[in-house]
């Protein structure tokens, strides 16, 4: 096909004029813009409040740890410490699972606790309707705007008979498609680019230049992802518009598909995943871990286990009596218990995360029929608010817990007496020596690996919708 640039520009201009003239579209554009702006402001405000709350809580929790009176270090390990999940800055844009996932984790000797206290627990049932966020505006409402914009483009012209005229003038159908797509795209960009600028400006004012620059790759990828998503809807709308007999038929079938993709399919996916892969019950999980720590390794529980361990340590140091040991037997026992527990805990939690992963994979299959699911996953991943990030934090917290408990146990092993253990006390010097938790979220590389499937699905949708649009306009009976 020859590139008819002049024709493309003319067609695009004509579409833009029509878009600007339509009262319905103007209203829709205003509503979407208002929602987007509101969601950006409220999202940022809410996120700032929660971030401040979390930072304060973290300091208080650490101070509580440091302020402990002298006590046995292992008693301190049972007192434990709380960690709070940091909220990624881009969560103001896409909060992902944030509300439904826990935010605090209790670090304590012997066992890993799950990250608890999800915000959803304090909500009302209305939360099930979802919350307005910039991401939800782009994922849910922008496609609707695109449908409203593009679904009449071929169908209405066919009804009016102008399509036949255009084609008889010798304009190639593909030129027509490109022209109409360009017109719609320009209109959308005119609406969304300022909105995007506002979003970045809020982040820039609120968090400084460094934050914006640091997140530039993610922001660019997000912009590209959402551009691809909007393009998919645009091409699909044009394809259906070219196929459908009337503008109304095109609108209705596209709305039907929107309903399926963004409202029905995600829920069906979640429901099927729930029945297909059942996660363990929390108490069972903890009870099983504790049972295995007790029985699998030593074969016995309680006092017998202690005796087995004692014999091992005595043999290791080549002495016969506990009093002759150069280290504290109890310290060594406690740490050996932790080391054993670590393996068992990892096994169980890996299984739990694998169950979640399988549930996610089940939902992902539906993305082949519902592009909403793919964009949702991708966007959450880039914002740092998906399950993969949650897991990353939970695992970092657990690794930290193990280092934290080891410092205490090592202190007992080195310093406590074998004859008068009960009197041994750790003090503020030891409390302060406990490492500080500094969390680094997963690098972009890892995020890209985790979301590669979603990116490919979305890419597939892009190619498929392009093919559909081209095929739809090239069929012989386009004008009839």
């Amino acid at each position, binding site marked *: 096909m020859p590139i008819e640039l002049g024709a493309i520009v003319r067609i695009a201009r004509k579409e833009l004029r029509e878009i600007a003239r339509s009262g319905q579209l103007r209203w829709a554009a205003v509503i979407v813009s208002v929602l987007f702006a509101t969601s950006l402001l409220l999202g940022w*405000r809410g996120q700032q409040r929660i971030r401040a709350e*979390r930072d304060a*809580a973290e300091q208080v929790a650490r101070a509580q740890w440091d302020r402990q009176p002298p006590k046995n270090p292992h008693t301190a390990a049972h007192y434990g410490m709380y960690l709070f999940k940091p909220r990624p800055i881009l969560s103001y844009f896409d909060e992902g699972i944030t509300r439904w996932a826990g935010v605090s984790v209790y670090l304590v000797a012997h066992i890993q606790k799950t990250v608890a206290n999800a915000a959803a*627990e304090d909500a009302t049932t209305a939360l099930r309707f*979802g919350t307005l966020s910039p991401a939800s505006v782009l994922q849910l409402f922008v496609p609707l705007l695109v449908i409203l914009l593009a679904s009449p483009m071929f169908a209405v012209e066919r009804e009016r008979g102008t399509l036949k005229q255009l084609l008889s003038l010798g304009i190639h159908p593909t030129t027509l498609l490109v022209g109409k797509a360009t017109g719609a795209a320009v209109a959308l960009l005119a609406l969304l680019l300022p909105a995007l600028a506002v979003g970045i400006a809020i982040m820039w004012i609120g968090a400084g230049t460094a934050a914006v620059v640091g997140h530039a790759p993610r922001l660019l990828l997000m912009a590209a992802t959402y551009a691809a998503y909007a393009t998919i809807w645009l091409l699909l709308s044009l394809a259906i518009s070219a196929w459908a007999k009337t503008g109304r038929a095109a609108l209705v079938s596209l709305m039907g598909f929107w309903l399926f993709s963004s409202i029905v399919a995600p*829920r069906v996916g979640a429901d099927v995943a*729930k029945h297909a892969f059942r996660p363990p019950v929390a108490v069972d999980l903890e009870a099983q871990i504790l049972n295995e720590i007790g029985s699998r390794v030593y074969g016995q529980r309680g*006092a017998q286990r202690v005796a087995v361990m004692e014999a091992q340590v005595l043999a290791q140091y080549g002495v016969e009596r506990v009093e002759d040991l150069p280290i504290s037997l109890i310290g060594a026992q406690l740490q050996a218990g932790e080391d054993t527990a670590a393996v068992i805990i990892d096994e169980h939690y890996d299984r*739990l995360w694998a169950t979640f992963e399988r549930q996610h994979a089940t939902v992902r299959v539906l993305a082949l029929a519902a592009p909403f699911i793919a964009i949702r996953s991708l966007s959450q991943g880039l914002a740092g608010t998906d399950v993969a990030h949650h897991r990353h934090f939970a695992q970092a917290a657990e690794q930290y817990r193990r280092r934290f408990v080891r410092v205490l146990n090592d202190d007992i092993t080195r310093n406590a007496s074998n004859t008068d253990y009960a009197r041994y006390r750790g003090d503020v010097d030891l409390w302060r020596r406990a490492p500080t938790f500094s969390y680094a979220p997963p690098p972009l590389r890892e995020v890209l690996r985790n979301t590669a499937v979603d990116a490919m699905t979305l890419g597939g949708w892009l190619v498929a919708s392009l093919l559909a649009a081209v095929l739809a306009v090239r069929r012989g009976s386009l004008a009839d």
Partner: protein
Amino acid sequence: MTLRLAQIVRQELLRVRRETTSWILILMLAAASLYAVLSGAITVRGYMGMVEGSAQRQAARVANLLRQVESGHEFGLYDPADPGAVGFTLAPQWVALPPGPFAGLATGLADVLPVFHRTSLATRQALSAADDEEENPDRLALGRFDLAFVIVYLFPLVLLALTYNVVSEERESGTLPLLLTQSITLGELLAGKMIVRGGAAIVVVVAISVLGAALASVQLRAGHFTPMLLVWVGVTIIYAGFWLSLAAAVNVYGRHSSTNATILISAWLLLTIVVPTTLNVLAEQLHPVPSRILLTNAIRDATATAEARGADLLSSFYGDHPELVARASVPDMQSYFATKLAVREAVREESRPIREAFEAQLARQRSLADRYRFASAALLMDDALTSLAGTDIRRHIEYLRQVGVFEDTWEEFFAPRIVSRSGMTAQTYDSLPHFVFDEPSLGIAAARAGSNALGMLLPIVFLAAATVLRLRHYSPG
């Protein structure tokens, strides 16, 4: 019903039967409802299995302890004849919120809120994490596909799709003036069409609701099933009435069928998606709930003294590891448990005012956010269905309150025995307290559903009045 209306209804029935689109819509609605109902029934059964399984394990455990006591053997540190050992570790009590009247039909927050707890003297549940199923947060965020979802979201769409052009189409095809000359008023025509089309969708949803209620309702006291079901059906019909009256008003005010469709779809989007999601964000900012992480810290601050004292008292038991003491000597387990009990009581007393203040503040903020539901029929309907299903927040708060009371009962049962060092006998085992959820009066849920129904009736009256007003000056041309 007048004779003429009956005649219109008959004619419309014949007509709808020939419309393929209407059949497809009704069948899709039926399929979605059936799937939702079956999925809900499976979920409730799974949950019941979990609760019953733990109750059986617990009974077996207690029976086993009792056998050990009666055998009179020595049992090392954790002696089933020692009330401290039993109250703290050997016989944890499983408490669970039984599924509500129609739990399988509306998930509400049932999969989010903790509804299953393992309690003993070593725990304090009211504020701790749940012990039920580990939930995938992504699955929770994706939403639920239950009958409530079908009724709140999809049912109105089907109703609107069936009725958006009942008048406009007759006008567009030129048959309206003809019909109106046959001594039929436009009002009768509209009513007849709405009755037939709305009725078809209502019958499907109500029938499947009844089926679902039969499948997924558990533990509903006999005699309550039918009244609760009637309330469910009643609010469903009122909700349908809301959307039908909206469609009727648009039909008589609107001009073209396609304009009607756009207006009605926009109304659906507004009421089921835009308004609820926006209100959720607004409510959260205007009435922020107190922070649980700050609560955690505050309780730790308040209990620091009690805990420090406890740590000191417990140090002769190597902190919390009397089994390690056993290497050198036989620890006095009875003093160990008595000490732990004293620490527990001190911690509880110190933290109680903070907990209560938190709960009061939470309740206040929630009830403020709760009023927002009157802004959308969809919010009202969802809230009504969740209340009837027993998966709402109010029943859950009541559950947590009862768990707190049970923990106190458990403590009151063991405390004097631990202090007086009296042993556990077969008789004490028989009188162990058990948790039985005392279901709040179902009338509360029904009243809530009723007030929500009133919230929907108001716009219905308004829309109906607007329709009637317009009908007086309607020109069929």
